[in-house]
């Protein structure tokens, strides 16, 4: 035990003497949470729209006014001919053009019908689709106002209730993801690097020749990172509660336990990476390319898993981060207890045990 404590002490010396890495280690989560909370959103806001108005009458003016009054759009450009659409799109700033047909008002009064083209720059299909839908919604509202005196038969109106996140804040979506990524980064990447570093420097050999047991070496190396990861997790939760007013509906204690479980599984992955890579550079490349990107993209952090092609949905099941994100969302936002997330917990636990077993096995092979 005394040996072990000495070992951990030495590990902390390594960590605290490397100020720059330490800065990144603690600065990263704060910077990311701030960015996601304040800057980044997958909603649309203030989208630039240009108008091509062939009729320039009272109705088109009113519609333009309605659209520019919404927080989603700002209309700041008027163009005069069809061929200009191409050139404003190519400049890149304008995302949509509203094309009012000739005699818009007149048609509306005479034929009860007028045409409006919503031309969107669909290089970003999601934004294009959303713009199209939102403009449409504004117009439907406008028609209702125009038609208020006419009773429309057989209307069913859906009353929508947004559950768990009534204000549709994107930070609710991102906090669990950022937490997962940070824990993965600190636990898996840091440990894999710190173990391969000892290999590269030759100190690992010295440790293996000493009476300290390999298992003690490994546990001693990863232990400080459990500590750092927990600090990071706490900081993230505090930031999200106090700055973004994001509630923690469920039990903090359960959240803590689940986080530790995830941290351990990430550490085991880190050890596994270190057993298969001989240099720090390889370890970093594997953790970044093989771990971080899939974690960001296949875990449901940003992109919904259910929309992915089937093979990727299947693959996403082997990513521990996916299960952890479901768990934190459940605890923090839905306020569920273990009875709702036991399955995910169980899967995560199984993966952790598997990773540990595998890395113990691999580690022994290296000693041959």
């Amino acid at each position, binding site marked *: 035990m005394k040996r072990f404590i000495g070992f951990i002490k030495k590990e902390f010396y390594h960590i605290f003497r490397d100020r720059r890495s330490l800065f990144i280690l603690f600065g990263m989560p704060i910077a990311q949470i701030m960015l996601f909370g304040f800057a980044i959103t997958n909603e649309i806001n203030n989208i630039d729209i240009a108008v091509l108005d062939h009729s320039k009458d009272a109705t088109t003016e009113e519609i333009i006014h309605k659209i520019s009054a919404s927080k989603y759009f700002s209309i700041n450009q008027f163009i005069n001919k069809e061929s200009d659409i191409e050139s404003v799109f*190519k400049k890149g700033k304008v995302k949509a053009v509203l094309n009012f047909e000739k005699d818009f008002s007149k048609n509306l009064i005479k034929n009860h019908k007028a045409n409006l083209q919503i031309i969107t720059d669909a290089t970003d299909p999601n934004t294009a689709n959303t713009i199209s839908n939102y403009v449409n919604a504004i117009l439907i509202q406008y028609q209702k106002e125009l038609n208020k005196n006419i009773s429309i*038969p057989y209307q069913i109106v859906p009353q929508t209730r947004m559950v768990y996140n009534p204000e549709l804040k994107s930070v609710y979506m991102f906090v669990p993801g950022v937490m997962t990524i940070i824990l993965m980064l600190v636990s898996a990447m840091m440990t894999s690097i710190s173990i391969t570093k000892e290999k590269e420097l030759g100190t690992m050999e010295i440790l293996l020749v000493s009476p300290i047991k390999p298992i003690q070496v490994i546990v001693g190396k990863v232990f400080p990172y459990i500590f750092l990861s927990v600090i990071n997790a706490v900081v993230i939760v505090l930031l999200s509660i106090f700055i973004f007013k994001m509630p923690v509906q469920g039990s903090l204690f359960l959240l803590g336990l689940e986080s530790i479980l995830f941290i351990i599984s990430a550490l085991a992955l880190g050890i596994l990476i270190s057993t298969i890579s001989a240099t720090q550079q390889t370890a970093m490349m594997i953790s970044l390319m093989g771990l971080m990107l899939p974690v960001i993209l296949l875990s449901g952090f940003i992109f919904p898993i259910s929309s992915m092609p089937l093979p990727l949905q299947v693959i996403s099941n082997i990513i521990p981060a996916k299960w952890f994100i479901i768990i934190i969302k459940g605890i923090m936002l839905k306020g569920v207890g273990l009875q709702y997330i036991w399955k995910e917990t169980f899967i995560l636990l199984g993966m952790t045990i598997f990773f540990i077993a595998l890395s113990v096995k691999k580690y022994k092979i290296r000693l041959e």
Partner: protein
Amino acid sequence: MLPIIFVLPLLQLVILSNAATFEVKNIKFGYIDNDHTSTSRDLVEKFNASTYFNVLTNFSSEALASAAMLNGEVDVVLQIPQYFERDLQKEKHNSLGVSINAIDGAAAGVENVYVTQIVQGFNQNIKVDVLQVSDKQMQAIRIETIPLFWYNKTLNYKTFMVPGILVLLVTMITLFLSGMNIVREKEIGTLEQINVTPIKKSQFIIGKLFPFWLIGMGLLTVGLLLAKLIFNVPMIGSLPLMYFYTSIYILVILGIGLFISNFTDTQQQAMFIAWFFTVIFILMSGLFTPIESMPKWAQTITEFNPIKYFVQVMRMVMLKGSDINDILPQLLKTAFYAFIMNGLAVWSYKKTN
């Protein structure tokens, strides 16, 4: 190392382009039918027919539905009230309860739109099926909106993501390799050896960075080939323009890499700092989320983000066929950035050695 440099990123291009989609489909849908009439069944059938919804469960009670939502088994629950059909025929209007799991706010917004569309379609149907169209209704004013999706008629998300992810890979690989390479020489001690040779510092730096510049251009080439062959991404614009812009852009990234390596002592530090800034740059680049939606101060920050310009240029030139005049602002800013970063890098290199 070479397989890691080329194979992994390209594998990722293929996989991630498929994964990175904000499209909302296969929505897990459940309903509670308290009415049990042909009208309510018809309504559910509408959802069943839609490609967006996977109708999974008929819940017998609200409690069961809300438990399923807690479990994550459903994301949208439609609640059809008792006497739905009767009330509809009597009062000619009615309301439906819809609950949406809104943790992913953006997806919830889209799901709401889909539900509304289906219900509207259903309204239309009743009018035709159940009742003859009344005269009054004919007089209602209708503004017909015609959505036109330019450059990507089928709203194929891959067309959008492939150029973006290509940017990401070119950037990450060149940045990490260049950032780590010089620190590695520092760590091993060979840098000292080079410093005592008569080679000029600028020569050394160019010699050091040129291979990475080549790797970057190589990655672009292979990536573009894959984009064309596997994803059939349209390439409307001029290829030479893309290469010209990329050749300048990589200089920016190499400058940053060199700058980082001058201020770090170990590969680990270099990697960390590089990773820290790439994550911020990527998130603020408009690659995944629209820059226009960010608050003004954040948009100002993105002016300093080289990745943003690369993402914009790739998408503009590839997908829209923008020419050099259209991308001139991005090009000039990037060139200026390259000049500043490399100047700083060379200056700090002299200073630290």
